[in-house]
């Protein structure tokens, strides 16, 4: 067992409804700073809904979501951008800009947060070499393989030095070998102190990695391994 400093994400009795329909029922969980957690759940288990809560895209109908120093009951609208800079997300469909190159896509996350030009260049280069994509920095996402696109998305999520990294089914398009490589990247990230949460439908994941696993089933979270 590891010792964590403090909970960076905390959900208390969270219930989400959308147009009267319940999406999540009574979710309670805590994730500590520096943890590496799998969020498993079958197809359509509402894994994305949980991620949307964590980046405050959706607010809970009842209950409290708190991330870092912010919580859903007290946060002001103007604080949400600050919060999002602390949470990097690799979206399931990557959400890359088709008409910008790899390095422009990564730099974009820095540009809109007002980082200086020199720093943008330096950080973009560094992070692209971390994910081994420097040679493709001038390619457009549509010309990349799914594996390469994934790494662009990871680079963009990390370039802002977030506290937490969320990845939604990152290994979907990967064979086992590439999956190992990506997991190694996530481990490296985690070692740097970044909390990593990976969503996956692969419920057999506990057999391979001995990490804490949160399972989303029937609209609630159960913890099944540590």
């Amino acid at each position, binding site marked *: 067992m590891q010792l964590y400093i403090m909970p960076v994400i905390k959900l208390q009795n969270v219930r989400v409804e959308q147009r009267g329909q319940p999406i999540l029922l009574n979710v309670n969980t805590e994730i500590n700073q520096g943890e590496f957690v799998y969020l498993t759940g079958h197809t359509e288990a509402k894994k994305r809904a949980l991620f949307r809560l964590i980046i405050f895209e959706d607010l809970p109908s009842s209950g409290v979501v708190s991330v870092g120093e912010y919580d859903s009951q007290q946060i002001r609208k103007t604080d949400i*951008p*600050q*919060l999002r800079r602390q949470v990097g997300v690799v979206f399931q469909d990557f959400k890359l800009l088709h008409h910008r190159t790899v390095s422009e896509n990564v730099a*974009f996350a820095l*540009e*809109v947060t*007002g980082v200086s*030009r020199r720093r943008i260049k330096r950080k973009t280069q560094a992070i692209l070499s971390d994910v081994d994509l420097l040679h493709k920095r001038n390619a457009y996402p549509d010309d990349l393989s799914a594996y390469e696109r994934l790494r662009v998305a990871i680079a963009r999520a990390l370039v*802002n030095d977030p506290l937490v990294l969320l990845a939604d089914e990152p290994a979907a398009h990967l064979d086992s070998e590439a999956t190992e490589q990506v997991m190694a990247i996530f481990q490296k990230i985690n070692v740097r102190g970044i909390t990593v949460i990976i969503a996956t439908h692969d419920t057999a994941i506990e057999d391979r990695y001995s990490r804490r696993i949160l399972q989303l089933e029937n609209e609630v979270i159960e913890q099944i391994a540590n």
Partner: protein
Amino acid sequence: MNLVLREALQGVRHTGIAGVISVATIGASLLALGFLWQVIESGNALANRLRARVEIDIYLKDGVSSQRILALRRRLEARPEVGGIAYMDQEAAAKEFRSRFGLGTVDALSSNPLPASLRVRISPGENMPRRARSVARSVASHSAVEGVNVGEVWVDSLEHFIEVTTRIGLALGCMLCFACAYAVSHATKLMVLAQRDALEIMRLVGATNTTVWMIFGVGGALQGFVGGFLAPLMMAYISPWWAVRVPDLTVTPTIELAFGLVVLGTVLGAIGSWASLNRMLREIA
């Protein structure tokens, strides 16, 4: 700020032809506005010059003594409407007649039939034609006076013209300002639409609303500024060409006008993009 300007410039570049059209619209609108301003200004100046020249001719009977003429003169000078009086003898009358109506007519006459006259200039001010007529009436029955010619007092129609122009100018000016704001708001909308995905990602990676606003809004002000800059530039460029053709109406912009147009353009650009952004951001987010 440096960043915002760069992104704004890039945003404007991304709008492509829409941005160019928007700048061109602003430039053209402000050019038209500047022209209108100059027309009205020049018209007013012209009217002022003409006002100094409203005159009536008082024809004197043949053989009236110079003393009686002097008396008439005194009487006229006493009136507030009168700005000045000049005596014109028969010789001068014939000369003027010739210069006005061509050679043939007067030279065809055996003797000089034109009478001497007093030419009275009406003092400038409001409603000069009415005052001219009142002066004419006051001396019409005087025994030394043969007849009175009030002349074509066309300062009246000029003033009417200026009034109408000013009104049209105001209406057109509002329309043109609206066109400017519209062009920018349109360009901004396209900018936002074309960058819809980018906007979504901006929000997801933590760009503040202010940043978003600046990136798209500053672009509008920028377009307005460039358009506002083009307008006086073009006026200055046209003005020598124009001066040869329409010398009465100068279009060379004054420093104040140029500055005013640039400021107006920038403000309208900012307003236009603000209006469009407000709606777009609400729709998209």
